[in-house]
């Protein structure tokens, strides 16, 4: 294997890792704060990609603005979903909350996916590039778009962490994820927090979809695989660990890319899954899972 190949595999793996890390974080946020088994991650990612595509091609906005459009749009969609079906269900269903949220979000995901299919047909809508050109380091090169996508992924992840740690709202979100009743007693409006955290999580997906548009073109079913991998990452990293999810995302991204290089299509799924089984046999709580109860294990 040439050095260039190694580099290529690594570059693809890192970019995909960035995607999975974002998606896993999205999942982590929703599961952590609201205990929702979310299956619509992929569809928000798809919506983000479509919004960016239309903003970029139809309205000719500049790349950063198109991605920002995707972020705003997905935040709104997320807030709508939370305000609508999710909060309605929360008022009703007491038992079997996990199964209920799973089915509700799966239903929404079917709906969104196939609505997109009806609206936009199964054609791929991609762009050739946001920014033309490649950066070369020695003999090896990487396109600016990949670099920027990776940068945006890193930026959103860091920004989210800072937001959760340092702002009033972020601290409120963490408080709710740790102890709802306590948070309520301290005057935090839980419903607002729910809406904001769900919107934020959806926004993560939207940004991922928008920033990777030139690498992964928009299509109705594009979200299925990232959603599966996001769950795999979260299980692998351990349910209680948010920064573990980020590391896990990159691990799985690289594993996927390497497996694809050596075995071809279809195998990355199988191999990632085998790795997950091995990890779970050795350490049931996941690689980074600790015996200390994390935010999700409350």
């Amino acid at each position: 294997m040439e050095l260039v190949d190694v580099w290529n595999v690594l570059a693809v793996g890192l970019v995909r890792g960035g995607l999975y890390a974002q998606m896993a974080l999205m999942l982590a946020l929703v599961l952590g704060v609201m205990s929702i088994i979310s299956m619509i991650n992929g569809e928000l990612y798809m919506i983000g990609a479509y919004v960016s595509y239309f903003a970029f091609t139809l309205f000719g906005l500049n790349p950063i603005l198109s991605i920002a459009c995707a972020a705003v749009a997905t935040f709104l969609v997320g807030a709508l979903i939370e305000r609508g079906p999710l909060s309605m269900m929360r008022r009703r269903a007491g038992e079997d909350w996990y199964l209920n949220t799973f089915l509700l979000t799966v239903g929404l995901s079917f709906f969104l996916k196939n609505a997109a299919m009806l609206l936009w047909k199964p054609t791929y809508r991609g762009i050739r590039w946001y920014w033309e050109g490649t950066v070369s380091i020695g003999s090896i090169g990487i396109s600016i778009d990949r670099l920027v996508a990776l940068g945006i992924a890193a930026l959103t992840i860091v920004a989210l962490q800072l937001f959760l740690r340092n702002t009033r709202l972020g601290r409120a979100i963490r408080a709710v994820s740790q102890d709802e009743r306590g948070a309520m007693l301290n005057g935090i409006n839980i419903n607002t927090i729910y809406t904001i955290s769900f919107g934020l999580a959806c926004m993560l997906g939207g940004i991922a979809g928008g920033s990777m548009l030139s690498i992964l073109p928009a299509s109705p079913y594009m979200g299925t695989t990232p959603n599966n991998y996001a769950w795999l990452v979260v299980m692998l990293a351990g349910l209680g660990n948010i920064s573990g999810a980020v590391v896990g995302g990159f691990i799985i991204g690289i594993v996927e890319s390497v497996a694809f290089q050596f075995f071809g299509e279809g195998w990355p799924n199988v191999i990632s899954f085998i790795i997950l089984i091995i990890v779970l046999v050795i350490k049931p709580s996941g690689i980074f899972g600790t015996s200390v109860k994390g935010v999700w294990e409350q």
Partner: protein
Amino acid sequence: MATAEERSKEKSLASDRIINLGYLPVGLFFVFLGVAPLLIKDEYLRHLFVVGLLFGAQAMVSDFTVGFINLSNFGFAAFFGLGAYTTGLLVTNFGVSPFIGVIAGMLMAGLLGLFTGALTMRLRGLYVAIMAWFMALALQSLTLVLVDVTRGAWGLFVPPLFESTDILPYYYTLFVITLVIYIVIKLVINSRVGLAFKAIGMDVDFARASGVNPTRYKMIAFILSCAFAGWLGGFYAHFIGILTPDLMGTQHTVEVLALNVIGGRGSLWGPLLAAFLVIPPFEYLKSLMEVRLIIYGLLLVLVMVIYPAGMAGVIWKVGELLKLHKGATYFGMEDR
């Protein structure tokens, strides 16, 4: 307002919502299922009966874990598909009799259930559900990839169960399978094991203190349910004649779980009934793929938002209003 903490608490089970109408209505329902296809001469309607019963039986099997040990199986299709592919491969490659193949499929699905459960059952229920889902994804990709063995997306041709093309023998084979599964589940629920389920449902810690091992009992139910799924899968293989990896897709699982929920959790007959009401229109819409899935998605969302107790819950409510339930029980209602 219930906090997420309370919502996500693993409230086992059954004891809260076993909707038991007594034996008469359920018996009548089974008699109807047994007689109706004889009276119907239309071949297409008979076909709908088989498909409805097939999905109904799957939803019922899924209800055994969802309704009684509060464990949703997001990988139901994996066990169904494994059963189907096991018998398919055995029959085509080794010339085994389909009847033995189906049993082998059942055993394989049970083994996979044992494996999945052994890996994750000690953890929270969420892990089992997600792990089973990954099993389905991995098996699906494996069948896609191992083209030499499974023919991948080309589809594996499986010989039929009977020589004749008449659909009635298939219907009655499935009917007997469903009846056996129903009876076995009922026997388990009414046995000491079922008592343990109930004990775990009321208070896990007390149950533990009385010597009930929750993990063990959950395993029993989970493995049984997986094996049944494999059994139905084996039948499906010989009924439909061609197997594709889509069989293990998430969509299949969701269809089964949706029927389970629409029918009503913890009632066993509810999901069976739901299948007969929901599947025919969907079969009819089969050519309009997207529209069908959009309706499916909306239906799921609506049931979840409007009435999570499902049809069995509605029927129970109606019966309650009419004061029909003498001797019938809705556990939890009388205790509290």
